[in-house]
């Protein structure tokens, strides 16, 4: 089955996807089947992405399958260049026309998407507040209500005193927080995060992870998090998808059963965490080995 390009996203950020939610069936190529639900927020089946240019073809994602179920944090880890960002961009319909898609990629109708990019992608000429309110402004929400809704988020993220600062006057962690609340204040049902804390130092990173956990506990929004950092994936996610090196496919799905509520600093030192870390690392290490041996 060939989906061609996925249907676009309507002006309000809701995917205008008339397609019925795909019925669950065991995923292809021996991927351990997720506890399949009938209407996963995001369904990906045998989904492949190729980039065509004049002289060559790059297979970025190869027959990937995964179900992203409601209300959980899901993480994707994998070697650099395995197509993680490309997959997220396909979900958000941001791929260039040179991308050839095949297979099935379905966001449940009515699901509102949010996307936190690796680079904060803030508008340099807008202040913290101006950036954070972009989504609400686009949705036509009046200014007084925008301010009212943002106030809570600015307070939670400690940005209240920086509301009228321009991005170049903020630290990297603050900018990433602005980017985070710009997305979250719109109350999306599915939040894509592409290495959102990749550019931050270890301490700031831990603080941000803690913040994401707290926000998630409060909102129970579905999150699909791409990360290089194994510990981050295990700490935050309920389920971790491990991808092979390019062309990327899902080679392992790890269900993370850790004591809830998790704590970025406490959970890290439990034996369960260490066991999971070892398990995932083993799978990933093989990918790097085959990469090193076969450049």
């Amino acid at each position: 089955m060939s989906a061609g390009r996925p249907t676009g996203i309507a002006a309000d950020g809701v995917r205008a996807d008339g397609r019925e939610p795909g019925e669950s069936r065991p995923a292809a190529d021996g991927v351990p089947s997720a506890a399949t639900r009938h209407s996963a927020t995001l369904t990906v089946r045998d989904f492949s992405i190729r980039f065509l240019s004049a002289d060559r073809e790059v297979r970025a994602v190869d027959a990937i399958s995964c179900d992203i179920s409601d209300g959980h944090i899901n993480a994707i880890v994998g070697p650099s260049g395995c197509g993680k960002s490309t997959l997220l961009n396909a979900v958000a319909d941001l791929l260039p026309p040179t991308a050839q898609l095949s297979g099935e990629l379905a966001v449940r109708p009515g699901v509102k998407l949010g996307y936190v990019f690796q680079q904060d992608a803030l508008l340099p000429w807008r202040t913290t507040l101006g950036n954070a309110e972009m989504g609400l402004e686009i949705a036509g929400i009046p200014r007084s209500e925008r301010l009212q809704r943002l106030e809570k988020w600015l307070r939670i993220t400690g940005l209240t005193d920086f509301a009228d600062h321009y991005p170049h006057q903020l630290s990297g962690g603050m900018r990433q927080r602005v980017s985070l609340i710009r997305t979250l204040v719109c109350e999306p049902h599915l939040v894509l995060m592409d290495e959102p804390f990749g550019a931050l130092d270890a301490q700031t990173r831990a603080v941000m992870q803690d913040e994401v956990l707290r926000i998630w506990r409060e909102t129970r929004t579905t999150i699909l998090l791409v990360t290089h950092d194994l510990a981050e994936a295990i700490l935050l996610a309920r389920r971790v998808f491990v991808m092979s090196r390019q062309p990327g496919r899902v080679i392992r799905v790890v269900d993370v059963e850790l004591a809830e509520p998790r704590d970025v600093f406490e959970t890290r030192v439990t034996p369960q965490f260490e066991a999971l870390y070892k398990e995932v690392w083993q799978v990933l290490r093989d990918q790097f080995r085959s990469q090193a041996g076969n450049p």
Partner: protein
Amino acid sequence: MRMFWIRTAFLGGLMLVWEVATRPIGGTTVIDPYYISSPLRIWEYLVEGLSTGRLLYDTAVTVAEAALGLVIGIITGLAVGLAFAFSRSLAEFGEPFMRGLNALPRVALAPLMLLWFGIGFAGKVFIAWSLVFFIVFYNTYTGARSIDPGIVNAAKVLGASRLQMVRMVVLPGVFTWVFAALRVSVSFALLGAIVGEFVGARAGLGYQLMLAQGHLNTDGVFAVLVIIAVLAIVLIELAREVEERLLKWRPATSL
């Protein structure tokens, strides 16, 4: 502050030397004021010209020509630049023409100006416009194409329509470039107006300059030059002020 006094002293000294050099000392002068005038003679000419209102009127005419050329140049440059940025086929088609027209020395348009507009006001606006238009056009076009695709994607995911994209992302990005070139635009607008007046006019600072030169009136030439210099400095400082106000979100780079 110390530098200010040093500069003032330097300028004052220069004026003094200039003045003394044009005075007869023992029957001879070092330099004949017929060629280089003298500070006092220039001052007298200025005071007279300004108090009768004649030079004031000419200044106003030149400023009006430059200002109108600037405004029309910015509006048309923005419009065409955006059209080029949005339509790939238009850009492909039109780019060589734009490059060709821009390469044309604008003084060469002067005969055309006289034919089309006569020696009145409109022709000078035309020359000023022809200079400003291309500055704004190229800045708009380049500005629109150098907008960070990450920002465009972010706005897209937040649900921005095409119009909202233009208003929130494209125009502010383009204005950055256009305002950064505002000082250049202002000085080119002034240049265009004055060059236009050289070629044929009934009023304006350029016309006064030609008039004084025709009468071999060095005092007049210098006096008008002083006015032009002061005018240019004031206008460019004004442009800098506007630029700084509008682009205050930008980090100050220091190398």
